[in-house]
Structures are given as C-alpha cells and as structure tokens.
C-alpha cells in the first residue's frame, strides 16, 4: 500500500510537471519539472515515506525500462545497414569523451572541498 501511495505521488508530480511544461511552454519535459517539484515536496513526511519505497523499487530496475525503446532499433534496420558502423563510431567516441571529461574534471577538482583539504599543506 505504501508503494502504491508512492506511485500515486510520482504520477501526481509528473502530471503537475506536464501541466506546467505545456501550459507555460517551458523548455523542460514534464517529468523533469515533476522531479524538481518532488524535490520540494520531499520536505513533507506525507510525501517522503511512500515515495522512498516506490522510488527505490523503480530505480533498482531502471535498466529494464529501456528495453522497449531499445528493441525499437529493429525498425531502423535500413539506417543501421547503411550508416551502422559510422553511427556506432560516433556513439562510442562521444560517450567515451563524456566519461573522460567528467571523471577527469572531478578528479582534478578533488580535495578542494573534500575532507583532505582540511589538512595543513606540506611545506
């Protein structure tokens, strides 16, 4: 029951996000606005407890949710046979670039505000 109440909250926040997105023609998709609204809503215990149960379940199985879209690759077979290798090359290189830049940026910025920064600098 708690999980069900959590799902009801998630859907309510998503609907509110959808309404705001369409109504004010904002650049953000409905679920994204719903996420920001929920971040504010989580201050209330009434929202927090049920949402935590449902969110943990949904996020634990997040990868399953991508399967239906992934199977959609079969509808683009002509594109895949024509440009498949080039598309894959572009995807692999740009994904690695994203990983590399992010992890290096965080790695280089580390210690600045981490616990280690409290240590006195070595002479």
């Amino acid at each position, binding site marked *: 029951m708690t999980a069900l109440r959590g799902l009801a909250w998630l859907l309510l926040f*998503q609907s509110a996000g959808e309404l705001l997105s369409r109504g004010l023609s904002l650049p953000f998709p409905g679920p994204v606005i719903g*996420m920001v609204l929920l971040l504010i809503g*989580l201050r209330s215990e009434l929202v927090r407890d049920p949402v935590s149960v449902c969110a943990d379940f949904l*996020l634990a199985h997040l990868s399953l949710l991508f*399967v*239906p879209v992934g199977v959609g690759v079969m509808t683009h077979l002509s594109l895949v046979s024509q440009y498949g290798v080039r598309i894959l090359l572009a995807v*692999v290189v740009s*994904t690695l670039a*994203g990983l590399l830049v992010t992890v290096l940026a965080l790695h280089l*910025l580390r210690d600045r505000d981490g616990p280690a920064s409290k240590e006195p600098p070595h002479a």
Partner: protein
Amino acid sequence: MPKFVELWVYLSATPLFGLTATLVVYVLAQAVYARLGQAPWANPVLWTVVCLAGGLLATGVPYPTYFAGAQFIHFLLGPAVVALAWPLWLRREELRRRWGRLLLAAMAGGIAASGSALLMGWALGLPSEVTLSLVPKSVTAPVAMGIAEKIGGIPALAAVFAVITGLVGALSGKYLFDALRIPRDAEGWAARGFALGTSSHGLGAARALQVNADAGAYAGLALGLQVVLASALIPLAFRFL
C-alpha cells in the same frame, strides 16, 4: 500443428505477449548476468534487446504489436525520472557543499558528449537528422526524445541512440576508469559514478548502482543534473547555431 500456429498468431497479437516477453527475457538475462559475476559485456539490457529484436524479426511480429504490450514498461520511465528526486534528496547536504564543482563537471561532460557527437556526425557525413538525433544521446531516453524533437532530430532514433550510449558507457566505464587510474576510494567511486550518470544516464547509473553504493548515488545525481542541463541548454544552443 495448425492449432499451434493459430494460437501463436492470436497470442503474439495481444499486449500480453510484448509485456510477458520483455519481462521473462529480462529476468533470464539478469540471472545469466548474476551467474557471470556481473561482467560488463554480459549486460542484461544489451542481451534482452538482442534476443527480443532478433526473435521479433525471425517470427515476423511487427514492432508496434510488440510495443502494445511493452508500453506498460516503457510508461514507467516518466515516473522513474520524477523518482530521481529521491537520491538527490538523500544527498542534499553533500550537494549543497559540492554543487559548484559537480555542476562544472556535469556541464563539461555534457558539452564534451554532445559536442563530440555533433562533430563526429558531421565529420562522418551522417544525414543531418541522424546527427541531430545523436546530440541529446547522453540524456535518459524519454528526455532525449523531447530534446531531439525540439532541435530537428528524430525522437524514435534519439531514444535508440540513448540506449546504445547507455550500454556503451555501462560496458566500457570500468576499463576506462581503471586505465586512467581513478582510485577505488569513496571520492574515486563518486567520480566514477558521476561520470557514468553524466555520459550514460540510467543505464550507466544502473551499472554503477550494482558495483558500489556511492557510485550509484552519484550516478543518479549526475543523470538528474544532466536531464535539467541538457533540456535547458541544448535547445538554447541550437537557437543560436
């Protein structure tokens, strides 16, 4: 035998088929993945997609018929994006303390991923609507579809690219980070997870979550940030291009 064929024709046309096939194949793939010690190449999404797409093509079941059932799983992507507020909320103290450098890393990583996709698509001579569908691929699938639509890409294609991107990150992240000698301490795990969430959204986050709790939380955070940044900045950037 004709009875069986009739039965298959009937069953494969009901929504029950797509939903059942998706869940059963995924559960099996997940079991194999666990048995193989969660090796990156045994990624359950990759093999579920390969098996299902292969099976549908072999049996001649069209994708819309499959999707009539699978849409019930697909639908949950929306509430799942909303639910990302939960890991953010749990880390709100850390966020408040580190938001500056996390935001910087998220922006740098997002620009690197989208920018390099745009450059690669252009350099490799891909059709422009394909290249434009590549640009939002580091964002989780439903959001990538919305962004692609705004900048002139093909939403369905953008969703597929997002899934492939997620798989590439989930498969290669470990090896890349080990080669870069990113340490396996708390900060190192946070950086690894954050990079996976930034570049490979939900599928990277799912992988991070399985490997380390810190990595998983930061991946969720990164994917939430990327959703907000990309849906604001990519359409804005294209307005000036």
